[in-house]
């Protein structure tokens, strides 16, 4: 524990206030935190962490950091002159959280890095997709902790025992059935993005359980969780036979509402996400959340040694980029003309210069936020369609894909 200083006392006040509001009578020790307060939104963020540092705050648990607004690694992606206050503030905030003792991961997909939490661990996480992934895919336990409270949990090493930290809070209350969807519909990565989008819209903040999915990779679950968190407020979902807390439907679900996922529903959701309609593509943006090593492996397969003609940006973490470099893939990708920013995501302002006009993406979360944040039009497609489009220098639709039929 970090002692009895003023910072610790303040952090404890915040955790206890949250516990009061949540109706928690106990606090539970946590073993890990991933904080969102390092994402600069104004001077108050700087003042908060400075206050903690001046009052001798220390972290009680390993604490990793979410994306920043500006990369410390390559400043050219978001040049300072576009929004000096934002870029300088972002950089200053990153240095202050590193000083506080955070592990500077700067990623929205911390679960792709080694050494994180596992099944049954109580943790405190802020980033919505990471909350959903840790809860759903790994069976770790966290509520969604907003800025400041996330840091307060990391300092005290405690969280209110309520919500998704409890067994009762983790039971499903809305059932989505893919039982009658033909298997061919479930093969492509795009299926999981669209399914997540549908689940989030209908479930809101409830806990969904999904049946009829025989298998799903970590990347598929990332897509499902992220889209559900973005379009609704899903913090935990279960996939029967796939995620660790749902070996059977009966064991996890008390759902009274059952929703049938249909081909028509998938096609309609795809259209809604593709706000720009089909047409010339100015840029392709991948990596929301940050691209994993296995996604890069698939991308290299799809590239098949070819270079890109349309700008292709892929956001990832420093950690995954190091793995790419160790395999010799980073040079190969850069030689193909692909840009790989780290520390940041690409859908919020101040915008990255290449991102304008009609932008293609395979990520439902990017498709959901970018039109409002960047004023761009979105073409939504599978990873294969995105890669072929970038390579050919014009929109390519996969004739084998169910969505075009």
């Amino acid at each position, binding site marked *: 524990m970090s002692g009895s200083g003023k910072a610790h006392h303040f952090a404890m006040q915040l955790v206890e206030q949250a516990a009061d509001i949540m109706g928690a009578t106990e606090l539970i020790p946590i073993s890990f935190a991933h904080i969102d307060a390092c994402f600069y939104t*104004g001077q108050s963020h700087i003042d908060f962490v400075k206050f903690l540092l001046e009052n001798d705050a220390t972290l009680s648990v390993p604490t990793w950091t979410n994306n920043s607004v500006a990369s410390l690694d390559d400043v050219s992606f978001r040049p300072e002159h576009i929004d000096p206050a934002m870029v300088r503030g972002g950089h200053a905030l990153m240095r202050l959280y590193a000083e506080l003792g955070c592990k500077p991961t700067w990623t929205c997909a911390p679960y792709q890095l080694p050494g994180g939490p596992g099944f049954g661990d109580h943790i405190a996480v802020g*980033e919505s997709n990471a909350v959903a992934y840790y809860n759903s895919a790994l069976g770790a336990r966290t509520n969604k*902790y*907003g*800025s400041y*409270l996330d840091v307060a949990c990391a300092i005290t090493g405690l969280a209110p025992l309520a919500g998704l930290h409890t067994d009762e809070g983790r039971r499903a209350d809305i059932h989505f059935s893919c039982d009658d969807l033909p298997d061919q519909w479930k093969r492509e990565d795009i299926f999981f993005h669209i399914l997540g989008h549908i689940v989030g819209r209908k479930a809101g903040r409830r806990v969904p359980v999904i049946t009829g999915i025989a298998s799903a990779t970590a990347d598929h679950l990332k897509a499902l969780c992220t889209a559900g968190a973005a379009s609704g407020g899903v913090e935990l979902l279960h996939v029967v036979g796939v995620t660790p807390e749902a070996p059977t439907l009966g064991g996890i679900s008390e759902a009274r509402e059952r929703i049938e996922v249909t081909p028509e529903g998938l096609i309609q959701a795809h259209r809604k996400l593709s706000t720009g309609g089909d047409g010339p593509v100015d840029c392709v943006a991948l990596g929301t959340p940050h691209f994993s090593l296995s996604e890069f492996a698939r991308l290299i397969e799809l590239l098949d040694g070819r270079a890109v003609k349309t700008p292709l940006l892929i956001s990832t973490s420093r950690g995954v980029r190091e793995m790419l470099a160790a395999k010799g893939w980073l040079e190969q990708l850069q030689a193909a003309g692909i840009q790989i920013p780290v520390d940041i995501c690409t859908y919020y302002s101040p915008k990255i210069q290449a991102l304008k006009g009609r932008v293609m993406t395979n990520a439902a979360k990017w498709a959901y936020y970018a039109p*409002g944040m960047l004023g761009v039009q979105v073409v939504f497609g599978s990873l294969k369609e995105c890669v072929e489009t970038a390579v050919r220098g014009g929109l390519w639709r996969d004739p084998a894909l169910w969505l075009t039929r």
Partner: protein
Amino acid sequence: MTVLHAGTAEGAVLLLDEPLSFWGGFDPRTGIIIDVHHPQRGQCLKDKILMMLESRGSGSAPGNLAEAIRLGTAPAAIILVQPDINLAIGTRVAQTLYGKTCVIITVSAPTFSELSKHTYLHISHDGTVGPALDDV
């Protein structure tokens, strides 16, 4: 009635027709609602008694509320029906850092409905709410 952040406040009532997200839907530099989908886009929250049934959740909301309190663009008070951790935390942090405040209380739905009929409200330190003297 529950006090999420105590203090006294008095001001003109701004009743929101829909929940507001303090991140993405509100600009702390001006105090103005910027969400293009919000029916009250363009309204300024500064010094108002803001009434909304609940807020729209965003993990970055506490930072934006604290920033608004720092800059003096925040509401004088927020009256909710659904308790909100993000707003309570943002206010507590601003109080500690800047010694400035935004009162936050929750009331029952019927009380909310009753209070929303007034033009000016006064909130006491113990959370008691009633029409302000100006409300005639």
